[in-house]
């Protein structure tokens, strides 16, 4: 019902929904305003090119404001606006190669999660940007961060511009799902979700905001069940060999150039650092990703996590499959994002396991189980009668 209300709101506020007939929608989840250019630039460039021709759509979802208020520098409000300006320049640069210059349309839209959220939404031709403006968690994982919201260290998280507050991680997940549902016409389009790889085995030592945003995107994809997911390496990629052709390097560099200009034009430091041995220019010359799941495969992978019975009244049997030895975490949340139980939190060998959980004390309602193991995140919904 909330989703329907939100969609009505969008219609009333005269937001263009001319993309409803799009054949493909590509989502780029970026923790910070420069992430998609640096780590997913080639894919994004090609997708924006196609969208600019009018046959598809790109949706950029920026989870944090990227205000980089990490070292007691004070509240650098203009900094995140400068990064946002740079990100918009990147979009416009790329899009205008393939179709005539147009005007930006920007408005505040209301998207529901557990509660309604006012979110800044900009459109440029067929490229849509959502700026959630959550606090930059910094590499040190500040308390006001998506990571801390996800692990329930904090109960809520407010946008840096105070436009909204998310009451629990589940609220954020549901908000993102509703954005995806709306922009892709509830699965009527081919959907690709691109985000940072959250698996430390393939994406070592990445920024916690990147990792958590990747988890958020994957979780949303798993639940909507119609998305393909590609996961990209982040900081670590600079230690790997350059793997781009000259024209692809040009794409990423062209995007990054605009981002840097947005910063310096507003008085902030440039991000163009060719002298550094592992800096932005190195990232712009590499692009490593894996296809985590396709829409078909996502359904198959979810069968690794099974519950019986469903709906449940008292005892429930949970079966899960471990494909690789390592740490396993299985947690149970209610639909409002409240942690109800930690079912498993230990190293496991390869194998199939079953646990019994006494759920009789759970209130009636919908619940979600998250199973994390090396390289995999599975979710499963069930109903308690």
């Amino acid at each position, binding site marked *: 019902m909330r989703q329907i209300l939100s969609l009505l709101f969008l219609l009333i506020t005269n937001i263009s929904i001319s993309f409803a007939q799009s054949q493909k929608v590509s989502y780029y989840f970026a923790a910070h305003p420069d992430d998609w250019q640096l780590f997913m630039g080639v894919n994004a460039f090609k997708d924006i090119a196609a969208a600019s021709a009018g046959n598809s759509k790109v949706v950029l979802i920026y989870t944090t404001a990227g205000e980089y208020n990490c070292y007691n520098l004070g509240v650098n409000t203009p900094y995140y606006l400068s990064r946002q300006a740079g990100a918009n*320049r990147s979009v*416009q*640069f790329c899009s*205008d*190669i*393939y179709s*005539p*210059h147009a005007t930006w349309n920007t408005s505040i839209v209301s998207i529901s999660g557990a509660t309604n959220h006012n979110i800044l939404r900009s459109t440029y031709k067929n490229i849509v940007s959502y700026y959630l403006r959550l606090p930059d968690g910094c590499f040190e994982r500040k308390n006001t961060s998506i990571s801390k919201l996800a692990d329930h260290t904090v109960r809520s998280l407010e946008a840096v511009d105070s436009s909204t507050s998310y009451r629990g991680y589940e609220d954020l997940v549901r908000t993102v799902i509703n954005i995806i549902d709306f922009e892709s016409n509830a699965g009527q389009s081919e959907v690709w979700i691109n985000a940072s790889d959250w698996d430390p085995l393939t994406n070592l030592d990445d920024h916690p905001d990147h990792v958590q945003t990747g988890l958020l995107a994957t979780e949303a994809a798993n639940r909507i069940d119609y998305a393909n997911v590609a996961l990209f390496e982040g900081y670590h990629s600079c230690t790997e060999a*350059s793997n*781009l052709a*000259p*024209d692809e*390097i*040009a*794409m*990423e*560099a*062209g*995007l*990054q*150039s*605009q981002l*840097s*200009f947005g910063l*310096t*034009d*507003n*008085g902030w430091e*440039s991000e*163009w*650092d*060719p002298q550094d041995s592992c800096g932005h*220019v*190195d990232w*712009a*010359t590499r692009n490593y990703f894996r296809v985590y799941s396709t829409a078909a495969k996502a359904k198959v992978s979810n069968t690794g996590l099974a519950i019986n019975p469903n709906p449940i009244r008292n005892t429930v049997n949970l079966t899960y499959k471990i494909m690789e030895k390592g740490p396993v975490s299985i947690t149970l949340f209610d639909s409002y994002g409240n942690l109800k139980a930690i079912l498993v939190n230990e190293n496991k060998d390869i194998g199939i396991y079953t646990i019994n959980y006494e759920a009789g004390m759970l209130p009636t309602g919908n619940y979600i189980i998250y199973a994390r193991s090396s390289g995999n995140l599975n979710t499963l919904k069930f109903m308690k009668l």
Partner: protein
Amino acid sequence: MIGIKKIALILLSTILCINSYCQYAAVSFYIVAHPDQWQLFMGNDAFNDIVKKTGNEQSKVMLIYTTAGDESYNGNTPDPNHYLAREEGARNSVEFCADIHGDHIPWVLDRILVRGHSILKYTYKNVVSYLLRLPDGCNGNNISGQSLQLLHDSLVQSITTVDSTTTYSGWADLDSTLREIVGNEAANAPHLYFNTADADTATNQGDDPDNIYAGKLCMDAIAGMQGISLKLFQENKIANLPVNLNDKDIATKAALLSQIDYVRTMRGLPTAWTTLNLMYLSRNYFRTITK
């Protein structure tokens, strides 16, 4: 502490540099025909020069654009929107490089008189640009009836800027004007570097005549100068030569082209992000002469 050091540097540079007649340790000149030429063909040298020199009060970079780059292929009067967009793109390229060091600052815009000719001069930190705004020769088609090539070959007796601010009465007048600009801006700096298109058409085949004749103009203007280093760049033909730049150098040239293209497309001009221009980004061919 940083503030005291910065103030001391500003005072020192003010003492050393009054207007353009300051004593620089090194000056690098880029003498080109069009607003995108140094980025496409000399981009890595120019980037490094601007970055190094804006971080060093003792050095500067001179960008001298001979034509407006109006590309008046339709034969109509040059469209100011067209050449102003290209000029703005060139300025953004400069800013992109120059702002890697130090704070963003406003541009200083002057019109100066050189041998009686009114010439546009833009200054951004230690990067000085002269815009002569002569008519674009349109790749040898000389549609406006005036071009550097026609002037050099005495097929026209004079050439007037596209904004009608001045007229040069022959190649010698233009040569003398450029010579004076170089002399003023070099200001006895002990190290002078010149970068331009290779005017030898046997080495630099197939280049735009505007580029070739900007190269010839440069060679004429510095004739007789000693103790200088000269880089002569091959241009259009490099698209057919092997890729010879590393990834970071390709990225740098792409970053410069991105700045040009952003303004072009925003102002309604066709994109410069073309297959041919992208081929230039990964290649850099030149010869060096020391006199």
